[in-house]
Structure formats: structure tokens, C-alpha cells
């Protein structure tokens, strides 16, 4: 247990001063700007927005700068900031089918309407360090080709028409949408709450959980039906205006995982699905999220839930890196009172042990 301590104010103040100095680094080196972070470390910004659960590139860039590049610390800062603003309301659900696609691939269907579009990707790079990037690198202008006006429907929608793949669950009439930021988490949790939890969950944790399903701990035989990244429009039904107001666009990544099929005496077999959605270009995150989302549907699909990734209480209680780091890192704060009582107990036990095990000769001599 942590017990408040007094004192150390001067040392704390000086430590923060030193931190600020250290953060700035060698002052003969140019200071990094928020624009530079946002433009050149864009995927770090995307991660901080996703796990900070707040879409605002500038704030995420500031948080990364303030946290000296420690992304979990930056996520913590963003979460704390969001608590300072009032909530105007809730957006209309975004339509990822109408996304202005910048990247879109399917590992299951070679010929999809609208085509396979690689976009800006690390895939197929050789993962060799490039010394030319060290300084003064000017990239070639992007190649261009005639822009397609063909729609790019979600692959799962196309396959869904034949009944080969299960359809998405419809909202029940009048059902409210769960919100983890407003109500404490209870189990069992419905899929809306699970997806919200996973969307803000730690990428590393979800990656490991997703990986564990591939290695056999709750195997669900996944294929990437589709990954898409691009811009979607956001609308907000503002009561004062009286209609759904366009707010602008956000970048999103969506992953549709197509998994092992199931059927029953009354239902024809069809593929099942897992879903991932996150702010920015967050492919590893959404793929992991989709794997874990599918694993967490074990109960609903009548599967034996024996693996960690299928245990919603385990996954949802440990996915949040702000909660996790808070509890782990609090261990370094003063626990002197607690530790003193443990120490006292331990000394007493050791004394009893020494007395019980003392050689008889010594006991006699003592007597």
C-alpha cells in the first residue's frame, strides 16, 4: 500500500527542472517541432491517438514531445487531457465502406472490385537500414495514375451476399451503446464494450494475445479478408443545428478477419469474423485487434474457452496500458510504512527460526 509521505519538495522541483533540461537535450541541436513530429513520425502520432483514445494530431505530437518519445507516457498525457474537456455528444457511426481508400489489400480474394491498392506501406521493403535517410534525403515525387471512380466495397460485404460469411450483428432496437469511459466495466461484456476496450488497448499486448491464438492457444484459423486505410467523413447530429453536421475527416484503419467456419443442424456453415478498427494507419494494431475480437467470441460461438485470448475478463482487464503502467509504476513510489511492517514481521520470523533450529549445546550453554 502506498502511504503519503511529506518532504522532498525541493528535490522534486529540481528533478523536474533537470527533466526539462534533459528533454531538450543538447541545445546546439535544433529543437523538434510539433509539425515535424506529426509529419515525420506520423505512425507514433497515430498510435498515441488510438491508445490515448483522442483524435487530435497536434495534441498527440505535443504529448510525444513532452514525454521524450515515451509513447505510453504520451498516451497517459493525452488521456489526462481529454478529462479536461466537456463532451458535446456522439458522432453518427462512420461509414468505412465510403472511405477514400489510400491502401486496401485482401489476402483472400485476388480480384476485388476496386482492386488491391498497396498505398504507403512497409510491406515488401527489405528492412535494410538506409544510410541515405540520415540527412538531407529528398524523396522522389509520388507516381501518379488515372484515379479510379469505381467504388471500393468492403470485401466482407461482397462475400456476405452469398451467405458464405456471417453477417454483422445488428443493433437491437433501443439498445444503448456501452461506453467504458462512463460506466465501470462488468463481465460478461458485450461486443460493443469489448471493441471499445480493444480499440484503446495496448498494441503490444494485443499483438501478443493475437499471436498466441495463431500459435495454438485458442486457434481460430484467420485470413485477412481485407485491410483498408484512408479517410472517412465524420458527422455529428448537433441538436442546436437540427441536422447531422459534417465535422471533417479522420484517418482510420480497418481490418476484417475471416475465420474458421461453423454451422449447426439449423444453420448452413459459413465463415465467422473478427473486426479491428483504429485511428490513423495502425495495421498491426487492427490485425491484432481482429484476432482477439474473434477469440473473445468463443462463448457466443459455442467454442471451448480455455486460452488466455478467449478470456474476456483477462484480456479486457489487462489491455489498457495506462491502467497497467499506473499499477506497475506505483511500486516505485515510497512504500516505507508498508515495508517497515513487513520487515518487522520478517525479523520476528527469522528469530523464531533461529531459536527453533539452534543446536542443543548452544541451548544448554545459554541455560
Amino acid at each position, binding site marked *: 500500500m502506498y502511504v503519503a509521505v511529506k518532504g522532498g519538495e525541493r528535490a522534486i522541483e529540481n528533478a523536474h527542472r533537470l527533466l526539462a533540461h534533459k528533454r531538450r537535450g543538447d541545445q546546439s541541436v535544433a529543437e523538434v517541432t510539433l509539425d515535424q513530429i506529426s509529419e515525420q513520425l506520423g505512425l507514433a502520432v497515430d498510435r498515441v491517438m488510438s491508445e490515448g483514445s*483522442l483524435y487530435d494530431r497536434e495534441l498527440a505530437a505535443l504529448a510525444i514531445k513532452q514525454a521524450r518519445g515515451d509513447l505510453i507516457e504520451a498516451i497517459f498525457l493525452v488521456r489526462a487531457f481529454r478529462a479536461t474537456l466537456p463532451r458535446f455528444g456522439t458522432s453518427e457511426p462512420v461509414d468505412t465502406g465510403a472511405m*477514400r481508400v489510400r491502401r486496401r489489400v485482401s489476402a483472400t480474394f*485476388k480480384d476485388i472490385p476496386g482492386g488491391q491498392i498497396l498505398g504507403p506501406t512497409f510491406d515488401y521493403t527489405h528492412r535494410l537500414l538506409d544510410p541515405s535517410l540520415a540527412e538531407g534525403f529528398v524523396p522522389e515525387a509520388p507516381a501518379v*495514375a488515372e484515379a479510379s471512380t469505381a467504388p471500393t466495397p468492403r470485401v466482407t460485404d461482397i462475400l456476405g451476399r452469398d451467405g458464405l460469411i456471417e453477417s*454483422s450483428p445488428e443493433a437491437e432496437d433501443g439498445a444503448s451503446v456501452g461506453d467504458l469511459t462512463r460506466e465501470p466495466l462488468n463481465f460478461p461484456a458485450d461486443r460493443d464494450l469489448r471493441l471499445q476496450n480493444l480499440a484503446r488497448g495496448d498494441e503490444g499486448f494485443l499483438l501478443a494475445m493475437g499471436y498466441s491464438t495463431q500459435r495454438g492457444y485458442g486457434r481460430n484459423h484467420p485470413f485477412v479478408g481485407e485491410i483498408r486505410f484512408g479517410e472517412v467523413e465524420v458527422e455529428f447530429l*448537433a441538436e442546436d443545428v437540427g441536422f447531422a453536421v459534417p465535422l471533417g*475527416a479522420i484517418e482510420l484503419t480497418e481490418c476484417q478477419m475471416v475465420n474458421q467456419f461453423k454451422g449447426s443442424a439449423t444453420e448452413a456453415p459459413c465463415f465467422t469474423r473478427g473486426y479491428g478498427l483504429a485511428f490513423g494507419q495502425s495495421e498491426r494494431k487492427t490485425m491484432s485487434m481482429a484476432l482477439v475480437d474473434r477469440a473473445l467470441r468463443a462463448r457466443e460461438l459455442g467454442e471451448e474457452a480455455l486460452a488466455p485470448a478467449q478470456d474476456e475478463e483477462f484480456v479486457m482487464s489487462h489491455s489498457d496500458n495506462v491502467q497497467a503502467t499506473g499499477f506497475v509504476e506505483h511500486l516505485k513510489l515510497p512504500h516505507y510504512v508498508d515495508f517497515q511492517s513487513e520487515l518487522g514481521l520478517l525479523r520476528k520470523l527469522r528469530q523464531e527460526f533461529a531459536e527453533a533450529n539452534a543446536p542443543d549445546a548452544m541451548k544448554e550453554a545459554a541455560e
Partner: protein
Amino acid sequence: MTQHNTQQAQRKAAMAVLAHAEAGEIAARLRDLALPAHQDLRAPENGLVMLRGRVGGDGAPFNLGEATVSRAAVRLASGEVGFGYTLGRDGEKARLIALCDALVQSRDFGGLVERSVIAPLREQLMVRRTRAAEETAATKVDFYTMVRGEG
């Protein structure tokens, strides 16, 4: 379509353009116009909107995460009330959108603001989007499945 619906569609279309522009771009276009007297009905205010997705892209809604949003309201001397909402924390941009929304509803200024502000910004937005679509199209790929030979 009723007159009310037509005007609503116009306002929404204007907002869809303005939300994508920078505050400076909107201000620069408004600067050249002789604007009617107007006042802030609600000073710019920053807040959050919870963004929603759908399970599987097309199913039941769920809460994805929040976004910062700025909003404002402006009233023309002639009575029209305009609202401005935009992603981000730029209160001045929200105020400019609100002003444009009020002007769009005005009989005297609706045409002018469409011609001088909205249309050029829409054009600019379309150029940017086309450029992005062309760069994207150049990365379209055909994967071939290698058929195993018989011999």
C-alpha cells in the same frame, strides 16, 4: 424537395467543404466581401465528440474513441443564425464556419458566399483529393497466382 430541405442540403454541403479548409483560407476569402453586421451568439468553445464505428463495418455501433471538436454560433443583424462545428481546437475556424453558415441562409448574401467562398474552397479540396487518388491509383497491383505446372 421542400424549400426547407433544399436550404438544409445547401448548408450541409457548405459545411462539408468548410470543415476541410484552414481558418486562414476561409478568412482570406471572406476578407474581400462587404459583410453584413454580425455578432457571436456563442463564443468558440472546445470539447469532445465520441466517434462511433460499427461492428464489422456495417453492424451495431460501438464507441471507437473521442475527437476534439470546436464549435461556435454567429447571428447576422438580419437575424440568420449560423453554426460552426469542426474537428480540432481552432475556435476561430468554428466561428468563420458559423459566419458562412449564417450567410448561406441569407437571401442577400447566400449567392455571394457560395460563389466567392464555398465554390473556390470546394475546387481546391477536389484538386487535393484527386491528387491523392492519383497517387493511390499508381500503387494498384495485380497479384498473380502461380499455377503449379504439370510437368
